[in-house]
């Protein structure tokens, strides 16, 4: 005998019956079956217990008749036993399973970006006018030599004798983070690829491999991932790329592998990832051939071999304790680029416990890694990319000033495509056609429109970055990299200022 569910609904659907003319658009739009049409009464009703708060019906209702609000009913207020803990226990009592969720950590924790303030030039140094004078964002990712050996020939021309490592050139320090085809729909995946190609930056295939029909067109702007599950990794895969990223971990679930629930493994996913349809694609926690740092070195060089040493190799880790020492080890193991994913990083599916409780903020991780690499004299041997909840151009500027070469955006890119952060990606029922494999739902996102929106996001943020740089009296992004003098902290304790390597505001 089953107990009646003790779970309160999370959302309430308020329908303004005067405006509603029962056109049934909401019934069609909602993938969760919240709205239904009663033939007898000729009216539309809602089952609020199924509502996830994605707001799709609200946006599409032609009469603006719907309002989706947090459920006004609640348990007795309790600052310790929050509703979420109560709800999770009841769910586990019903299922005996691990609570799954998606997106990035939503917990309340200090957001260091919000405690860092930027500088501007006043009097002693002129601002540079970003609208009229050149402002340069071009960035190179990869290993740089310690020095250049040159030779002057008879004509006075300069020859460079030093052999250079391969580097990636991007026109703005923003890249699209790894979001696999599988976690997101083909249309969403393609939108990001097209926007990256058009702007002159790169996108990341995530663990799901690269669909064959996209390889030729997008090979020069794709970073392909080699994750623990080695999904979709065929020899051609590596050669149709700009760089290869070894995924050791990600911010949303440090220490464990990727999750693709069986619902999302359709025929095309099955063919791209080379696994049977309908099975869960759960990547192994470690790479089974990397159990220690020297093994990482072997994989890095194996990848360099398979690409004839023509492409940089990137290693992506989650920001955890000791990240500085780990990063140092990775650089010495041969990584050309290090990607650090903070605990706010998003995902298509993850156990909630990992998302909420494991990992450290990327701001602190970045500052620690950058400082450690400089102390060891090896900062120029790699580029640093950070990700994990970069929300706006100001976060990008602060990240670069702390020491990053570029940032990965994942969640922000999806929000540009239409996501409203309902945290239900793992159900495969994304109402916006982004995190789903359902063909009907996928159709909702037109790649041309998506690409336009993602391109606009890159353009808007790049313009904002240029504005801020000009205000600081800098006209080339390389002069901001690691320039912590342009940052000040506010509302931070002494140890936090020390880790970040910045002074307090007013100092």
């Amino acid at each position, binding site marked *: 005998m089953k107990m009646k569910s003790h779970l309160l609904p999370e959302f309430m659907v308020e329908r303004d019956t005067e405006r509603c003319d029962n056109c049934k658009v909401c019934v069609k739009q909602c993938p969760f079956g919240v709205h239904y049409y009663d033939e007898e009464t000729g009216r539309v009703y809602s089952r609020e217990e199924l509502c996830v708060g994605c707001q799709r019906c609200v946006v599409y209702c032609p009469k603006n008749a719907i309002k989706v609000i947090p459920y006004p009913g609640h348990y007795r207020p309790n600052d310790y036993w929050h509703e979420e803990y109560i709800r999770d226990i009841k769910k586990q009592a019903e299922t005996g399973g691990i609570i799954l969720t998606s997106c990035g950590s939503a917990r309340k924790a200090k957001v260091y970006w919000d405690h860092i303030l930027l500088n501007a*030039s006043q009097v*002693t*140094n*002129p601002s*540079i006018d970003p609208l009229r*004078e*050149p402002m*340069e964002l*071009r960035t*190179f990712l990869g290993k*740089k*030599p310690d*020095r*250049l050996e*040159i030779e*002057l020939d008879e004509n006075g*021309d*300069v020859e*460079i004798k030093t052999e*250079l490592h391969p*580097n990636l050139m991007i026109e703005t320090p923003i890249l699209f983070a790894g979001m696999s085809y599988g976690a997101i729909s083909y249309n969403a995946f393609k939108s990001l690829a097209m926007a990256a190609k058009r702007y002159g930056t790169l996108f990341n295939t995530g663990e799901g491999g690269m669909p064959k029909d996209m390889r030729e067109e997008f090979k020069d702007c794709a970073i392909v991932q080699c994750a623990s599950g080695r999904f979709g990794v065929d020899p051609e895969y590596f050669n149709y790329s700009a760089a290869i990223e070894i995924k050791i971990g990600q911010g949303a679930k440090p220490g464990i592998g990727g999750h693709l629930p069986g619902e999302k493994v359709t025929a095309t996913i099955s063919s791209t990832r080379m696994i049977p349809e309908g099975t869960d694609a759960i990547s192994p926690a470690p790479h089974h051939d990397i159990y220690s740092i020297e093994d990482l070195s072997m994989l890095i060089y194996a990848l360099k071999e398979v690409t004839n040493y023509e492409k940089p190799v990137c290693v992506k880790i989650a920001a955890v304790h000791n990240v500085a020492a780990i990063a140092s080890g990775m650089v010495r193991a041969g990584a050309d680029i290090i990607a650090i994913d903070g605990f706010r990083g998003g995902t298509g599916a993850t156990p909630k416990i990992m998302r909420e409780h494991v990992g450290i903020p990327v701001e602190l991780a970045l500052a620690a890694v950058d*400082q450690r690499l*400089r*102390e060891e*004299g090896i*900062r*120029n041997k790699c580029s640093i990319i950070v990700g994990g909840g970069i929300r706006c151009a100001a976060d990008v500027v602060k990240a670069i*000033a702390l020491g990053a070469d570029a940032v990965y955006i994942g969640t922000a890119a999806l929000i540009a495509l239409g996501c409203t952060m309902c945290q239900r990606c793992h159900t495969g029922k994304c109402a916006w056609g982004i995190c789903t494999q359902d063909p009907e739902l996928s159709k909702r996102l037109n790649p041309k429109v998506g690409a336009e929106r993602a391109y606009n996001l890159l353009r808007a943020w790049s313009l904002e970055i240029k504005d801020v740089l000009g205000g*600081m*009296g*800098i*006209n*080339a992004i*390389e*002069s*901001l*990299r*690691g*320039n*912590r*003098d*342009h940052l000040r902290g506010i509302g931070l304790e002494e140890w936090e*200022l*020390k880790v970040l*390597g*910045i*002074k307090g505001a007013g100092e």
Partner: protein
Amino acid sequence: MINRVSVTDGRVTKEIQACAVFGVMDRSGRRFDGKMIIEAMKNMRVRGNGLGGGFAVYGIYPKYKDYYALHVMFQEDDPDLKQEVDEFLHRNFDVVHDEEIPTNEEANVSDPPLFWRYFVMPQKKGEDKKLSDDDYVVKKVMYINTCIDNAYVFSSGKNMGVFKGVGFPEEIADFFMLESEYKGYIWTAHSRFPTNTPGWWGGAHPFCILDWTVVHNGEISSYGTNRRFLEMHGYYCTLYTDTEVIAYAVDLLMRKQGLPIEVVAKIFAPPMWDQIDRMDEKKRKFYTTLRMVYAPLLINGPFTVIIAHHGEMIGLTDRIRLRPITAGEKGDMLFVSSEEAAIRAVCPNLDRVWTPHGGEPIIGRLNSVEKRVVE
């Protein structure tokens, strides 16, 4: 391995200033007195505020020309401090002669520290034997500047010297009796308008490491980036002024890495990407590589600098020319100045007057190949 001392845990205060610079070189190597440069600096008096002035002169110690001439300032009138420095120097160097730098007590300057000069040769022991003389001197100078409080080595080259402090340039010149005591074939000078530490003698320009000196007009907005890169190479910025990074960068790139000034100018002030993209393949590849490898040494923000070392005087501005520079030539004499009027004040008739594009260096070199200094 250089002792990696962390200076104030990496969060260093930076000076800000606006100023005037002037440089004059006799390319035949003929040495002349300081009258010309003092007059030129007087002409540009309104560009400073009297809280900093300084000079660098080359060829002033012919008697000790093979020895490193260390100029040291002692902030505290403390015999223990001097003793500590003396002992350190005697332990690490062969000190052939040392004396107080002669000064004029009547000069209009406030609270001068004690100035001493030592003529030394390295005396290397143990691990240090692997270092070149120059690297050894840099290491020891960095040690005194970071580890011995209130003592600063502000000049460390052979047969040259820096003289600087708090006051208008002509007052500093008066204090050190530059007009009567010294003759050199390159003179550079600076007048300062500081806002941060208004009374500190160590903060004035020129900045010097070995025989590299830099005088600078402007503010380096990329200071944090440049400084952290140089720290990775063992140079520690201890004089709280952004100009230091240029002096150390020049030592690293020109002395240690052997790059010519034409390339170094393009590292500090490279052409814009849209210009590089229009160049022919060879040039494009060269500039792209240069910017990619030496990105942390791009000097951003307004600057006009005059860099000097034995045999060369170089004037350079930032790549969008936010600070002025004018060059003038008459026979063997080369002038570089913040304003044309200052050159005309000391040399009314010039063969040529010009101002290069931002990022294009003005280079003065000795005519003779062996760079001999002629009396």
